[in-house]
């Protein structure tokens, strides 16, 4: 069952905040619709990047993510929640989180439960690494704020953890104020980031 809440994204062209819908409980149909728009757009842009000689290191590192597979493999589990943001009748971003079995690593919070962000992505037309002029900004910020709100409601006090792809490291560290706990050998050496209750509170205050 999915629930819908109003949120706001920033339309880059006009600089205005525009209404969007946060979907809690993204359905198979939602994901199908998203992927059928995201995939061809992304493939077209990757062809362009290849033709222009853009080095592969600058291609989006999550280009292989298959949201259909992620939704199908987790939809029956209570522990997983999938969120999406829709605007202009198109999915602008998706996030899959785990709400059980993950615990904080930061010393002051060690062993206490947190919301773990498994996957978070904006639509390819919102990515500065893909297009010169992204359509909407704030997609990632709203999804991260959603994870923090969920953490608060789960009594996790805002604690959030995630493994970041290298292209997103600086965003989580510098823009979101998460603590960088360094590369994690158990997860492809991706850097592990965590947000304490204090950092979560500051993040929400600033937005």
């Amino acid at each position, binding site marked *: 069952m999915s629930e819908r809440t109003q949120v706001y994204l920033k339309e880059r062209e006009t600089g205005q905040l525009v209404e969007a819908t946060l979907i809690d409980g993204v359905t198979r149909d939602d994901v199908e619709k998203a992927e059928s728009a995201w995939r061809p757009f992304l493939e077209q842009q990757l062809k362009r990047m290849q033709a222009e000689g853009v080095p592969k290191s600058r291609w989006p590192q999550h280009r292989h993510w298959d949201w259909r597979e992620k939704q199908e493999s987790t939809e029956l*589990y209570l522990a997983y929640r999938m969120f999406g943001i829709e605007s202009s009748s198109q999915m602008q971003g998706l996030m899959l989180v785990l709400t059980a*079995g993950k615990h904080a690593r930061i010393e002051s919070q060690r062993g206490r439960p947190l919301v773990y962000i498994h996957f978070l992505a904006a639509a390819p037309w919102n990515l500065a690494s893909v297009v010169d002029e992204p359509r909407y900004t704030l997609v990632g910020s709203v999804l991260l704020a959603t994870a923090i709100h969920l953490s608060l409601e789960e*009594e996790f006090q805002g604690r959030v953890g995630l493994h970041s792809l290298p292209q997103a490291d600086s965003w989580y560290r510098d823009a979101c104020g998460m603590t960088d706990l360094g590369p994690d050998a158990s997860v492809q050496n991706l850097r592990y980031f965590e947000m304490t209750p204090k950092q979560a509170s500051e993040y929400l205050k600033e937005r």
Partner: protein
Amino acid sequence: MLQVTPSRKTMTLNLTEAEMKALEELSATKDISKTAVLRQALRLYQMVEARIARGEKLFFEHDATKQKAELMVL
């Protein structure tokens, strides 16, 4: 504040003294309410059950020795 939790239903739970003690200890250690502990337990149990039903096994691995021990799930 953004509301991201669906509406909930209430139930009464009967536990032995030992079970209640374990629940209280987990609640204190994890710094969450007893209800939140049970919610966590249910989510994990449901996932474990589903994966075992698919023919998978549940193991614990020792961080240092990498020794694995299968966890029996009823």
